[in-house]
């Protein structure tokens, strides 16, 4: 069966420090991968998605970047964090169009 791993669960980082959040999927190949941010426990904002290795689409201009170095690995990064980067970050995968997505457990990032 397929599983998704996202870590760390919580992170407190100072302003200006770098960020690296990792997400891996097991039990499937060539998944679509997603990074979302959820602010204040409500709506989801799509940050990046990837349909294949090295293919990254960005939905909003921001202080973050994403990479997909392997088929089932998706990394969210920042060179210098801002206070506004605080939030709950969710990784998700799906097999393709018109299928449900499966989410990781999320990372609570607090920038101080």
């Amino acid at each position, binding site marked *: 069966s397929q599983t998704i791993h*996202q870590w760390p669960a919580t992170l407190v980082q100072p302003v200006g420090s770098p960020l690296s959040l990792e997400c891996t999927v097991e039990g499937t190949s060539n998944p*679509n991968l*997603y990074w979302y941010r959820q602010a204040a*426990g*409500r*709506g*989801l904002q*799509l940050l990046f*998605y990837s*349909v294949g290795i090295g293919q990254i*689409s960005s*939905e909003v201009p921001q202080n973050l970047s994403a990479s997909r170095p392997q088929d089932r690995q998706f990394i969210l990064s920042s060179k210098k964090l801002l206070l506004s980067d605080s939030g*709950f970050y*969710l990784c*998700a995968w799906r097999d393709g*169009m*018109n299928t*449900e*997505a*499966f*989410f*990781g*457990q*999320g990372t*609570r990032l607090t920038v101080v």
Partner: protein
Amino acid sequence: AQSVAQPEDQVNVAEGNPLTVKCTYSVSGNPYLFWYVQYPNRGLQFLLKYITGDNLVKGSYGFEAEFNKSQTSFHLKKPSALVSDSALYFCAVDHGQNFVFGPGTRLSVLP
């Protein structure tokens, strides 16, 4: 452009009573619709989906949803609410490679 509306920010219901969480959508073409639930500090969990076929879709934890094309709605329902159903619920529509999520509805089931 695809969009999803969840007109209620908050829904309160007594335990044992039926619950409805509303969702309306705007899509071009055939809609592919989903419901997710989120518990505090957790990821979203898939509940059910409508792709085609029967308008009444049954999902996890006793939830079901009714697709109504004329009203462009996909309301989530459960005949008898449990306190453990209290959570944040998201409706979503498929949009090519992505989803468009609604803003979420917080459901509180009161004992």
